[in-house]
C-alpha cells in the first residue's frame, strides 16, 4: 500500500504525500497515472516507513489549485493508495538532500568555498579537478545554491527530492479509511 504524503505549496509547487501499499508496482502505478493524465510532477520520493505494510511517497506537483484537485481525485481512486495529505509550509517540515559536483578551478575555489560556508554545505569529496558538496535543507535553498553556482562549472547534480513530515503528533496513516 502507498501512504501518499504531502502536497505542499511553494511558489506554484504543491507537495503531496501519500501512504501506499508497499510494492514496487505501487510507485509504478502512481507514476504511470501522472504520465498518462499529464500531471506535471517535479520531484518524487518513495521510502520505507514505520510500518512493514506501507511505503510513503512524497511528490511535488507543479500546477494550479484546479489541477491539484483533479490529481487528488485520481489518487483517491487508486486502490493501492491508502492515505493522501497535502503538506504545506505551515503544517509540515520538509527537507531535501543534494550532492553537487563542481569543477575545482584555482580561480573560483575560494568563492565556491565561501558560498558553501554560507549555505552550510559540507565538502564530502575533494580532488584536483573537482569538489563534491552536500547540502541539506528545503528545496528553495537547493534552487538558490544551484543558481549561485551557475557562475561556475557544475559537473553533476543529484537531488533526493523532498521528504516531508507533518508537525505535531498527527500521522499520515491515521487518515486511512479502510
Amino acid at each position, binding site marked *: 500500500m502507498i501512504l501518499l504524503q504531502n502536497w505542499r505549496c511553494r511558489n506554484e509547487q504543491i507537495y503531496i504525500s501519500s501512504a501506499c501499499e508497499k510494492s514496487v*508496482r505501487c510507485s*509504478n*502505478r502512481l507514476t*504511470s*497515472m501522472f504520465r*498518462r493524465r499529464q500531471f506535471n510532477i517535479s520531484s518524487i520520493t518513495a521510502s520505507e516507513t514505520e510500518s512493514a505494510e506501507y511505503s510513503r511517497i512524497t511528490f511535488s506537483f507543479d500546477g494550479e489549485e*484546479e489541477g491539484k*484537485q*483533479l490529481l487528488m*481525485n*485520481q489518487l*483517491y*481512486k*487508486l*486502490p*493501492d493508495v491508502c492515505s493522501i495529505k497535502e503538506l504545506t509550509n505551515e503544517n509540515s517540515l520538509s527537507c531535501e538532500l543534494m550532492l553537487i559536483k563542481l569543477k575545482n578551478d584555482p580561480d573560483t575555489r575560494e568563492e565556491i568555498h565561501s558560498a558553501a560556508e554560507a549555505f552550510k554545505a559540507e565538502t564530502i569529496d575533494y580532488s584536483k579537478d573537482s569538489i563534491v558538496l552536500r547540502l541539506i535543507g528545503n528545496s528553495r535553498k537547493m534552487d538558490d545554491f544551484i543558481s549561485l553556482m551557475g557562475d561556475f562549472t557544475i559537473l553533476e547534480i543529484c537531488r533526493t527530492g523532498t521528504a516531508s513530515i507533518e508537525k505535531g503528533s498527527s500521522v499520515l496513516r491515521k487518515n486511512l479509511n479502510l
Partner: protein
Amino acid sequence: MLLSGADILVKTLIEQGCDTVFGYPGGQILNVYDSLYTHQSEINHILTAHEQGAAHAADGYARTTGKVGVVISTSGPGATNLVTGIATAYLDSIPMVAVCGNVPTTQIGSDSFQEIDITGVTLPITKHNYFVGKVEDLADTIREAFVLAKSGRPGPVLIDVPKDVQIAKCEYEPKSPVEKEEPQPAKNTRIEEAAEIINSAIRPFIYFGGGLITADAPEEMLSLAEKIDAPIGCSLMGLSAIPTNHPGFLGMQGMHGRFASSMSMHNADVIISLGVRFNDRVTGNRQKFAKGAKIIHIDVDGSELNKTVNAVCGLRGDVKLTLQKLLPMLDESKKSEWMAKVDAFRQEEENYLDNRDGLTPRRAILTLNKYLGENTAVCTDVGQHQMWSAQNLNFKTSRRFASSGGLGTMGYGFGAAIGAAYGTGERSVLITGDGSFGMNLNELATAVRYNVPVVVIIINNGVLGMVRQWQTLFYDKHYSNSVLERKTDFPAFAKAFGADGETVTTPEELDEALKKAFNCEGPYIIDCKIDKDEFVLPMLPPGGSMDDIITKLEVQE
C-alpha cells in the same frame, strides 16, 4: 481442504457466483483448464475463436446481467489478445475479472516463451491488477478482485497467475460471495445546494449516462423528471435505461444525438447530470457547451467532477441514494413554457427524420424494432450503424443494449452478442457494419458451435462509412483507404461456418429475413445492402457546438 492453485481458482470463481466464463486455453493456463474439466457441472466455459472475442463476450455478459464477467486466457499472446476487450470494459466501466496464466515465477523476467508482463501492459486500462506470487494469496486476491470490479464505479480487474502458483497446493476454505462496498449518498450539504439550484430552475434538463444503469436508478430519475417537469436526454451509455417511448425522453445527446435532445440541453438553464462524464463526443466545443446552464453533476466517481466541464455543484456519491435524498427536497412544479419549447424542438426534429423509401439505414433499424422482445439484447459494433442504432432502436428494458461507447471498439459486437445471449438466456441481436464485422467475424464459429441464437444484421455499404462521412465533410472527399472493395459473400461465409444467412436489398426482404432469423435456432446472418453515401445525421462537427449542427445534407456527385 488442501487444493492446488488451479482448483482454488476455479472453486473461488464458483464460490463467487460465477456460472459462465469465456476463454481460450494455452500452455500456462492448462492447470486451470484441467480444473474446469473437473468442475464442468458447476461452471460453464465457452471457448471462443479468439481471446478478444472472449473478453468482449464477458463484457456483453456483464452489461446484460450486471454481474461480473469473467474471461480466462493463457500467458503472452493470449493475455495481450485480451487487451482491447479489457480496455473496452475499462472505458465503459464494466465489471470484469480477467484471469491470465503466466510462466512459472522462477522464469518471470527472463523473456521465456509466451511470457509477457501483462500487469504492466494492462496497468493503465484496468481498475486494478494483481500478480499472484504465491498460492496462499490466490483465493483472497480473486475475492478482492470481485469486490473491486463491482464496487463504486465498476471496471475490469486482471489477475496474473503463474503456472507454479496454479500447481502449488494450500488450504482452501470456501467463503460466501463478496458484497460490493456499501454505496454512499453524496454529502447532505451538497444535496441541499443542488436542491436549491433545481428549485430555482426555469429550464431544467436531465442528462444521464451509464452510471444510472450501474446504480440501478432509472426509477428515481423518472421521479425526478416528473416532479420538476424536466425533459430527459442521455449519453450513448445511458441508452436502454428507460424505455425509448417514455413521454419525457428525448433520446441520445452528443455528436450524433437526436436534435431535440441536443437542443434542449443546449437551451437548458440547469442540467442535472447523473452518472455521465461529459466526453468530448458529448460536449463538442467545451467553451461553447451549454454555456447558459448551471451543471449539477452526480457521480460515484469523484474524479469525474469538474474533469472536463465545470459543475456548479458536484456531488460525489451513489446516484440512486443521492437522488433518494434529493427528491423530497424538491418542489413540485410545472414548466409549461419550457416544455412547449421542448415540444417545438421535437416538432422540428420530425422535419429532419429520414423517411425515404427503400432500404435506408433508419428503415432497417425500424424494421428490426418490430422483432425485438422485452428481453432481447441488442449489441452493436462501432461506426455509422452504431449511431443509427442508437438513434432509432426502440429500447424496452434496461441493460438490453451493449455498445462500445468510450473506446469505440470495432469488432466488439459479435463477442458481446454471444455474451449477451448467455446473460439474458435469450436470442440476442448484433447490428454491425461490414467494416466492424470483418474484424471479429471468426466468432461465428463460436456461435455455431454452441448454437447461440444471434441475429446478425450487417449494415453493408462496402465502405468504412463513418470514415467516409468524415472524409466527405472534412477531407475533400479523399476516400483514402475507406473503400473496402471486398468480394465477401456473407451468406456463403455463414454457410461455410455452419450457419445460414441471406442478402437483402429491400425493406420487404429484410422483414422476411428477420422473420426467418428470429425463428432460427442458432446464428443467422443478414447482409443488408445500403448505399455507400448514407450519412449519420444530425451531426455536430468535432469541436463544434449546437450552432454548427448539420441536420440535412445533399451529397453532390
